[in-house]
């Protein structure tokens, strides 16, 4: 293999493999080996598709996330098995709805987990636990003004991450 191509593959791996693994593990119910197979297939498809590599890193990542998600969903369909959250034998349309809900959850979980610990904490207090600004300020030991501004930075950081992953319409 020419040196340049090996380098290209290595760069793809270093830049995107961890982010993809975090996403795909959440689509495979924590099956890390299966997730890694999907990540491998996704990166190989990118490597074979030079147009993807010419894009900016941000849109390349969105492409990779879309491909990874398709591989997993096609696999669900092919095995006629459903993601674990689905227990009954629902009609095709509902399977698609549920699959897209599972994908949404994996996307947002990946993005939240990728935030800084401080940003995650402020969202945990205000959003998840439904605390008021002053309650959150007390719980986190910071002034109320900081709760508001930190919420602002956290949510904008989350938006940027989701956008990179191609998760926003």
């Amino acid at each position, binding site marked *: *293999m020419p040196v340049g*191509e*090996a380098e290209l*593959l*290595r760069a793809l*791996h270093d830049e995107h*493999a*961890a982010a*993809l*693994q*975090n996403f795909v*593990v959440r689509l495979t119910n924590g099956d*890390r080996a299966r*997730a*890694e197979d999907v*990540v*491998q297939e996704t*990166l*190989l498809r990118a*490597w074979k598709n030079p147009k993807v590599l010419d894009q900016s890193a941000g849109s390349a990542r969105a492409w990779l996330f879309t491909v990874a998600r398709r591989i997993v969903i096609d696999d669900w369909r092919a095995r006629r098995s459903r993601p674990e959250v689905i227990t009954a034998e629902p009609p095709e349309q509902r399977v698609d709805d549920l699959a897209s*809900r599972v994908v*949404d*959850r994996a*996307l*947002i*979980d990946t993005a*939240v*987990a990728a935030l800084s*610990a401080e940003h*995650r*904490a402020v*969202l*945990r207090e*205000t*959003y*998840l636990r*439904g*605390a*008021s*600004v*002053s309650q*959150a300020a007390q719980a986190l030991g910071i002034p109320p003004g900081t*709760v*508001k*501004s930190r*919420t*602002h930075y*956290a*949510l*904008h950081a*989350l*938006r940027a991450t*989701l956008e990179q992953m191609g*998760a*926003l*319409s």
Partner: protein
Amino acid sequence: MTGEDRFAHLDAAYVLGTLDTDERREFAAHLSECDDCAASVASLEEVGRLLGSASPEAFADDAIQYEPSDLLLPRLLSAVREQRRRRRWLVSGAAVLAAACLVLVTTLLVRTTNSTPSSPAGHPLAMTAVVDSPVSASAEVTAVSWGTKITLHCSYESSFDYPPGATYDLVVTDRQGSSQTLGSWQVTPGKQISYPSGTALTKDQIASISITTGSGTALLRLKL
């Protein structure tokens, strides 16, 4: 603190619904006057909606980060190496095929010049590759009283890694577009075989003759 600064960071708390009633009302009123804040709130709405699907565990202090194993990169590199190797095979396979065709054409020319023009046997006609494959073939197509006699001459590259138990089918398509399989045979790498076959279709009715894999992929075709 000026009015603008006071509102600058309230977009997210507003979207998530964590402002107290007074501040919420004030900010809502401000939104109708401030395009920047309105745009910022709009840009966060989908994020707020997606947050509704998140798992509580994702917000944990020590949210889990999954690292791919150290084996991923070596596996990627060797997968690519394997694919390049296979592609090289296909390319060299095509070269062998081209050489084989040249021999065939030469043979045909010699045979044609030597044979009597009224020979009832069909001349072997080289089949054209539909996809890259390690197989080359020619077909003799002869009109007979009961229909059409077809004799295939097939040769397989020996170095190719055929799937064990691979079989090929001979398929004839008529001018109406319907196909029939005339028979199947096993692949014998490195050897040449002749496969005699026939159909009740008259030669005029036959549009094409194909060799397909057991799973239905056409490898070679001869249009009549």
